[in-house]
């Protein structure tokens, strides 16, 4: 992972993970779906974690979910110092309506207002020429 000009880490893309990042850059949330049992999963895996089938297809998922848990960052730990400019910010585990969970920042909501079960939608912030990260905001 190299650094962006803003000094935050950016993902190194591989053939496995590129579809996720480039779709995000185009404003879409995509995840792997097992072509045998239909299981959706995140993060990218080499086979289906339910049935072991190798053939996984990238499909668009609804960019909607709920806050499963949250923790507000008040200091930079084990990450790049440029995050300091964003403190405090709310980190969540988001449970997507289509199933999987993912880490995501919650924006547009002060730390004291965040609640488990809060409805959120994804938006995308470009971090490199190829990639964007999914963030979430209340709906």
């Amino acid at each position, binding site marked *: 992972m190299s650094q962006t000009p803003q000094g*935050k880490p950016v993902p190194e893309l591989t053939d496995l*993970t590129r579809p996720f990042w480039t779709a995000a850059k185009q404003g879409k949330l995509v995840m792997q779906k097992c072509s045998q049992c239909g299981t959706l999963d995140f993060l990218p895996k080499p086979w289906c974690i339910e049935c072991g089938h190798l053939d996984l297809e990238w499909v668009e998922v609804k960019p909607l979910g709920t806050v499963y848990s949250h923790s507000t960052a008040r200091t930079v730990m084990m990450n790049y110092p440029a995050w300091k400019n964003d403190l405090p910010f709310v980190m969540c585990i988001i449970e997507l309506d289509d199933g999987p969970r993912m880490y995501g920042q919650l924006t547009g909501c002060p730390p004291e207002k965040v609640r488990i079960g809060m409805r959120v939608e994804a938006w995308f912030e470009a971090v490199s020429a190829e990639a964007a990260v999914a963030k979430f905001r209340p709906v």
Partner: protein
Amino acid sequence: MKNSLRGAVAIVGYGRTPYSRAKPGERIRTVDQYIAWAAALALEKAGMSKQDFDGQGLGVSHAEASHTVNWSAAVAELLGITPRALIRGDQGGASAAAMLIRAAAMIQAGVVDRVLVVGADTPLTIPSIAPGLPLSPERTRGVFWEFQGPVGVMGANHQFGLVQTRYMHQYPLRSEQLGKIAVTTRYHASLHPGAIYRKPITLDDYLNSRVLSDPIRLLDCVPMVNGGLAYIVTSAETARTITDKPVYLLGCGEVSNYYSGSRMRPDITVTGFVQAAPEAFRMAGVQHEDIDVFEPYDDYPMIVLMQMEDYGFCKKGEGGKFVDEHDLTFKGDFPVSTDGGQLSGGQPGGAIGGFMPIAEAVTQLRGEAGERQVKGAVVAAASGFGGIPYARNARSCITLVLGSET
């Protein structure tokens, strides 16, 4: 039970080097030096020499500093030992416990009679993930950091903060209850010459310590140190010829990548100890009330509390109440983390802290804990806890039951 390891092996020696915060002016030692130092302490305790391990077993824990495809054999070369069998620990903070189980199985199978198990790391000199550091591909692969760093996840504080928030949503838990664990471990650290933070703290100190990642406070967080640990395990027969204080492995249970519920939506407040602990207790033939001292994996108070529940010392969700109702000190009715834990003792990297519960359990069962000795301790439970899976909790969970009698 089929293939029971009960009583097959015993720990006959252990060593824990002094820890270093690598402050300016301190001597900086390498991983190899810490390994040799810890091994020397363990050999001295057992009255053995390194020659006793030629043709026997050597176990080596992974360290952040050890990016090589044959680290355990490299350690054999550095120590000048010619082992018949190598064991490589690759389960983070569960590595030490995992290697004890592997060693026991090899000894019971007759592959070797004894194994020297070592581990050290120097995270303050060679960090794994740190601000601005380029990340090695293998490190990124293992922790999926490319899906966390760019999103803003602040390491274990955030990961455990998310677990703790969810826990506090599902169950009653007050900060004071976690604080009691932090205060108790610090009290024990004040009685352990090797602990890195020894000045006692009060509950107010805990409650007033600054929040780093809600609800994780500064005094919830494990301090990294440079250091090394080792232990020696032999067949029970050999152990009795070496020492009059063998500490037997009575039971073990292990699970990696446990899901509580569905793979897609597991309950992250439950760890694999709900499976590992009953397995270990069954093998040992012990009940909860038989455990004289509990040495959990103790880098965060929340993790300690979850182990109290998932071991079955109390019901899920009643860990806070359990903490209220028990004296957790070495003098109390439920002694926990009697060495000061990793929380106040220090964590020699993400893979080596798991040696500490074993070292302290053995120390207690041999009656060598000095000021913090639990009176009459004959059975101990100790944990290994390794890794944090993506948006979940506890990759490897291992329970060991150790005893001074079979």
